[in-house]
């Protein structure tokens, strides 16, 4: 599950709000399961903080912080599993010899296969890792048009289809 699905569920004027809301409701009831990168926590906090500042101004910084924490608690209430690629692996190219976090190492390998940007690479690396550890994961759900445009290639890499929230809801028969 990509970060934007969780934001869509909170954004009442989003084109995928209805579908993301259905997904969130089923997750909350434990009727479906989802996994997402730990990076999602960071992205949700960042979007909540930036948009609160834009919408409400900087007059009450304490309220902004409370909003960010409440947004994260709401995300936690969905019962999603957060994918963390723990540990370091040695990386050696030419004179570069260093240990680096596994997620960076995997993302570098993906950067050779695709033209994705840094944070997209990290999400896809986490998705591939999650699929390798949980064969039951059926799809990567995202509202991101750039990722969906590359879905054939990314599906091959991760071993699961890339679906929009609408396609996922139809596919799963979520009403």
């Amino acid at each position, binding site marked *: 599950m*990509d*970060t*934007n*699905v969780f*934001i*869509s569920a*909170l*954004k*009442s*004027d*989003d*084109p*995928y709000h209805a579908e*993301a809301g259905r997904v969130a409701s089923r997750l909350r009831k434990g009727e479906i399961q989802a996994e997402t990168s730990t990076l999602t926590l960071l*992205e949700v906090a*960042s*979007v*909540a903080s*930036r*948009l*609160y500042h834009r*919408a*409400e101004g900087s007059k009450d910084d*304490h309220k902004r*912080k*409370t*909003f960010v*924490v*409440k*947004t994260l*608690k*709401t995300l936690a209430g969905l019962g999603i599993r957060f994918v963390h690629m723990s540990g370091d692996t040695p990386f050696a190219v030419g004179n570069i010899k260093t240990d680096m976090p596994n997620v960076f190492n995997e993302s570098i390998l993906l950067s050779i296969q695709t033209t994705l*940007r*840094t*944070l*997209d690479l990290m999400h896809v690396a986490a998705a591939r890792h999650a699929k390798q550890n949980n064969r039951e994961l059926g799809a990567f759900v*995202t*509202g*991101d*048009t*750039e990722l969906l445009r590359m879905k054939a290639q990314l599906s091959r890499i991760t071993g699961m289809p890339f679906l929009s929230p609408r396609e996922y809801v139809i596919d799963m028969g979520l009403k």
Partner: protein
Amino acid sequence: MEILNVKVEKDTIEKLERLIKKKAYKNKSEAVRKMLEEHFEEHPELFGHDELQGILREADYMSDQQFEKLAARVFKGAKTAAQLVAQGRDR
């Protein structure tokens, strides 16, 4: 203002007295007071945990309905959720 009795090394007293002679501070009391204030200002992380606990409590007091109403206002706008997240991904 309150009074604070603090034991310090002789060397520290001498350094303070040198600063007072150089007119950096009016007296030892003002010197210590200003140094403490500057240190607290430069290191807000010292109080970060207390603040976080307070924020966590306040987030708990906010009902889901209050949050949904506020979130609808905050997230409202022309950009889609995917575009908002993509902005943070340098796109």
